[in-house]
């Protein structure tokens, strides 16, 4: 077809740095999306955190065509199940109506505003909130090229021209792309000849050609970024967080993605966003619920109409506030009462430091029930900014929160006395087998023959893994021992600079000392101090990393525990600690362990190096850990509706879709000594960070806890919150229909956008009821009010999170036990003072 199509070519108005700035700002619209092997929880609305929570949720819903809250019917089911307190809900509704008097005053025959609003909340048919349609053709087209370009070795034939960059490589192939021709027609063909090859130039020219006003350019580009939040999030990860080798040979930035969108837009191929709105509620239907007609209300009809007009998301919001309020009013009085009681000193049999992860809390409680065991909570990377160079692995593994960059590269060496030969043989065999098998499977000529030749064996193995997964694992373990038992961290050699040690003595001392400062662990210590990281177990599960330790970059935490234990057992470090006044008894031995949160087994590392003097202590502790594990497994199994023993099988079974509940249910972050929470069953819903305010006069430690571990907890909380609210847009949907793609993420079906967030099975029961109650994080700090206020006001991020309603902060005064709530920015404007009594915090958003 030959046809003359006019293409508007305009001189760019923006200079390159201006375009770069607009692109950078637009990129913030989406959160970075980490690859599956190091899944990091992020707030999908992190780009909106400068806004008040409610406004951010509305903006996010508009931007991503997502829900603002759970559907009303889901909240009603939770209310019926007793997971929302009816009395609390009624209090929240009364506050929404302006207090008791306006709520209860009759506006019609025996009808009050409270009656009307409660009827809308509980009785009247609920209109679902807007939901997105399927992926439009333009987004499917861009997603197709993203999948081709960003592939990290999954395909046998990679996309040509990747070294040119994403935009240029795609441009080079578009003349041969039928989808592009169908989508853009003649205009698209002509554009291919004349658009700039540089993405920034292409964007600048495109904005001019499209006559986008200067003050609208940023929002215009941001809207393009938001059309495929998954792939855009992947690009943000590549740009801001990836290792150089992750992106080598295939450069791509957000400008590349936007330039492709601009190309489609200039060709007139951009689909209009679908924004279905829920129909308005009929005020007459609301009146009819009480058997009344309009005339009977008189002047009160305006109130009926106003309540009928409240949008469904706001009704759901009232339920969410009720959930938050009910939770807060349950645990804060208990904590305040414990603060008044104080602590009874005890001599512990052993001390164990766990990760702050919510899954540690019930295990700690179970262990403490076994004897005089004192437990602490600390960020699971144990304060070590390290990267692990695992033996046999070419890539380094970041064992720290994404807020930090690694400062120490730790290599591994065979543990003394361990037989590493079997491990090395097994690894060599596996590498060789997967090499030729992979080549044969992907070869055009050999694929079918390979399937024929190996099908019987593969089928037999699959049958064995299905019917006897434990037996298969035992056989595998007998062939290749666990790397963690054979290899040990090598602190004497820097992984990248072999002539240097991984740590200087000063650095060792700093990290060792930090443990005491951050957790309140005091000397003299017990005979055994066990640093306990955690890991999860899952097979054939793209989300396995989500069960590991977030503080360790989505990896197992045992490695960090081993490194810190080795530092703390170093004689020179002990001497240095003594100089700081931390006199660790010579009888104290630091050990490293790892809690498997799927099976509740605890592995103690380097047992063969434990001196005979401590073997009996260890035997007693291990027996207690076994009992605690069994008790916790039993309790967790009940929540999963399964037998305890079945959890161990599930951890090894390739068909398991819910090996554990992970961090579902997370709701609180408590900063204080363990004695504050020890008598309270927090039901696995609280991150517990140990903290002793008496040893932190300047608030530095508190600042570190709130600006890092609490921030990570907020990301986790928001990921669970939004993944539950809209599992299609903010979560990743049903696991059973997902496919991993490019070794970087999952898609639903055979293509489309990369899915962000958590799968349905991690959040919802099989009947569709939310297991995770969507509510914002409640942070409770045991410290004087003025010290907390000084820390919060000195750190933008804290003032933002607490002031704009992303996290609710409650302070408990250590002396009086009185609890106060940090006021939102709008409340402070109305009533000066950072802390308000809890009673003034009603209906807070």
């Amino acid at each position, binding site marked *: 077809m030959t046809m003359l199509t006019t293409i508007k070519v305009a001189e760019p108005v923006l200079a390159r*740095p201006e375009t770069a700035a607009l*692109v*950078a700002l637009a990129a913030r619209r989406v959160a970075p999306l980490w690859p599956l092997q190091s899944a990091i929880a992020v707030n999908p609305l992190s780009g909106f955190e400068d806004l008040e929570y409610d406004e951010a949720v509305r903006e996010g819903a508009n931007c991503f065509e997502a829900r603002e809250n759970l559907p009303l019917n889901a909240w009603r089911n939770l209310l019926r199940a007793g997971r929302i307190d009816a009395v609390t809900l009624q209090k929240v509704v009364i506050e929404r109506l302006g207090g008791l008097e306006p709520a209860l005053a009759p506006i019609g025959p025996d009808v009050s505003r409270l009656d009307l609003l409660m009827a809308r909340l509980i009785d009247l048919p609920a209109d679902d909130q807007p939901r997105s349609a399927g992926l439009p053709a333009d987004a499917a087209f861009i997603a197709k090229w993203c999948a081709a370009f960003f592939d990290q070795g999954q395909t046998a034939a990679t996309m040509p021209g990747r070294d040119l960059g994403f935009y240029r490589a795609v441009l080079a192939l578009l003349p041969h792309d039928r989808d592009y021709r169908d989508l853009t027609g003649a205009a698209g063909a002509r554009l291919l000849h004349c658009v700039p090859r540089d993405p920034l130039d292409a964007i600048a020219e495109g904005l001019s050609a499209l006559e986008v006003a200067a003050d609208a350019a940023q929002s215009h580009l941001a809207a393009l970024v938001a059309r495929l939040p998954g792939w855009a999030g992947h690009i943000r990860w590549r740009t801001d967080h990836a290792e150089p080798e992750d992106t080598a040979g295939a450069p791509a930035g957000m400008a590349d993605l936007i330039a492709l969108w601009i190309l489609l837009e200039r060709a007139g191929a951009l689909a209009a966003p679908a924004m279905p709105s829920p129909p308005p509620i009929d005020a007459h239907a609301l009146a009819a619920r009480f058997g009344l007609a309009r005339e009977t209300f008189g002047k009160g009809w305006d109130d009926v109409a106003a309540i009928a007009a409240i949008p469904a998301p706001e009704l759901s919001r009232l339920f969410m506030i009720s959930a938050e309020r009910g939770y807060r009013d349950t645990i804060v009085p208990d904590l305040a009462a414990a603060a008044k009681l104080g602590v009874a000193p005890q001599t512990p049999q052993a001390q164990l430091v766990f990760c702050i992860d919510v899954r540690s809390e019930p295990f700690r409680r179970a262990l403490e029930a076994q004897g005089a065991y004192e437990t602490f909570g600390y960020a699971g990377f144990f304060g070590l900014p390290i990267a692990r160079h695992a033996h046999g692995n070419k890539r380094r593994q970041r064992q720290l929160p994404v807020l930090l960059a690694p400062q120490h590269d730790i290599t591994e060496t065979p543990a003394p006395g361990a037989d590493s030969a079997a491990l090395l043989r097994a690894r060599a065999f596996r590498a060789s087998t997967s090499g030729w098998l992979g080549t044969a499977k992907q070869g055009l000529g050999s694929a079918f023959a390979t399937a024929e030749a190996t099908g019987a064996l593969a089928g037999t193995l699959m049958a064995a893994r299905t019917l006897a997964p434990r037996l298969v694992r035992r056989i595998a373990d007998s062939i290749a021992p666990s790397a963690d038992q054979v290899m040990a961290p090598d602190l004497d050699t820097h992984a990248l600079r072999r002539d240097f040690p991984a740590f200087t003595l000063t650095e060792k001392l700093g990290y060792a000392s930090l443990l005491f400062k951050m957790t309140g662990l005091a000397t003299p210590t017990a005979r055994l101090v066990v640093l306990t990281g955690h890991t999860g177990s899952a097979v054939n599960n793209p989300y396995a990393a989500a069960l590991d330790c977030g503080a360790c970059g989505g990896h197992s935490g045992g490695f960090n525990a081993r490194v810190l234990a080795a530092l703390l057992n170093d004689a020179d470090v002990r001497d240095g600690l003594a100089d700081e006044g931390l006199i660790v008894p010579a009888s104290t031995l630091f050990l490293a362990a790892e809690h498997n949160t799927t099976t509740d087994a605890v592995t103690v590392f380097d047992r063969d190096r434990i001196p005979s003097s401590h073997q009996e202590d260890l035997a007693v502790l291990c027996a207690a850990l076994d009992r605690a594990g069994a008790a916790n497994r039993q309790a967790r199994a009940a929540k999963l509706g399964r037998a305890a023993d079945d959890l161990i099988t599930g951890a090894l079974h390739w068909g398991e879709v819910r090996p554990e509940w992970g961090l579902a249910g997370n709701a609180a972050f408590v900063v204080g000594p363990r004695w504050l929470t020890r008598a309270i069953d927090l039901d696995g819903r609280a991150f517990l960070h140990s903290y002793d305010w008496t040893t932190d006069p300047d608030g530095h430690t508190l600042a570190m806890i709130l600006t890092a571990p609490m921030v990570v907890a907020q990301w986790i909380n928001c990921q669970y919150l939004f993944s539950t609210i809209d599992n299609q847009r903010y979560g990743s949907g049903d696991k059973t229909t997902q496919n991993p793609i490019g070794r970087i993420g999952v898609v639903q079906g055979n293509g489309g956008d990369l899915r962000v967030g958590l799968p349905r099975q991690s959040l919802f029961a099989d009947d569709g009821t939310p297991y995770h109650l969507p509510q914002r994080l409640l942070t409770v700090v045991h410290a004087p009010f003025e010290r907390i206020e000084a820390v919060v006001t000195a750190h933008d991020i804290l003032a933002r999170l607490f002031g704009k309603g992303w996290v609710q902060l409650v302070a408990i005064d250590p002396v009086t036990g009185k609890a106060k709530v940090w006021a939102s920015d709008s409340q402070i404007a109305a009533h000066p003072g950072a802390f308000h009594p809890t009673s003034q915090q009603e209906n807070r958003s």
Partner: protein
Amino acid sequence: MTDTAFGDLVVHHVKKIEVIVRAEDQRMIENLFHAAGLGGWSMIRDVAGFGHAGFHQGRTIFNDQSGLVMFVGVAEAAPIAEAARGLARLFQSLPGVTFLSDVAVMRSDYFATVRTEP
């Protein structure tokens, strides 16, 4: 200080740009400087000070992104002006400050414009 004070020392008059932003926005400034053609710059991490929002603490040791960072770039007038135009766009949405000044350098080749992609 006058030119006479330099004697036969050859100096070149160029522009300096100093930018203070949140550490979490550091990458944006780097990309922008690249796009403007700055051949290099210095960074001072962990900047503390007092401003519109009160006192800014330095970063905490568990969070590299919690403090402020300062960029110091020197180049010819054209790329500095382009960088400033880009910064003006950024600061419509982000907190931060920019200082522009005239400076003299001895080795002008160190501050040559480089065209690279962000």
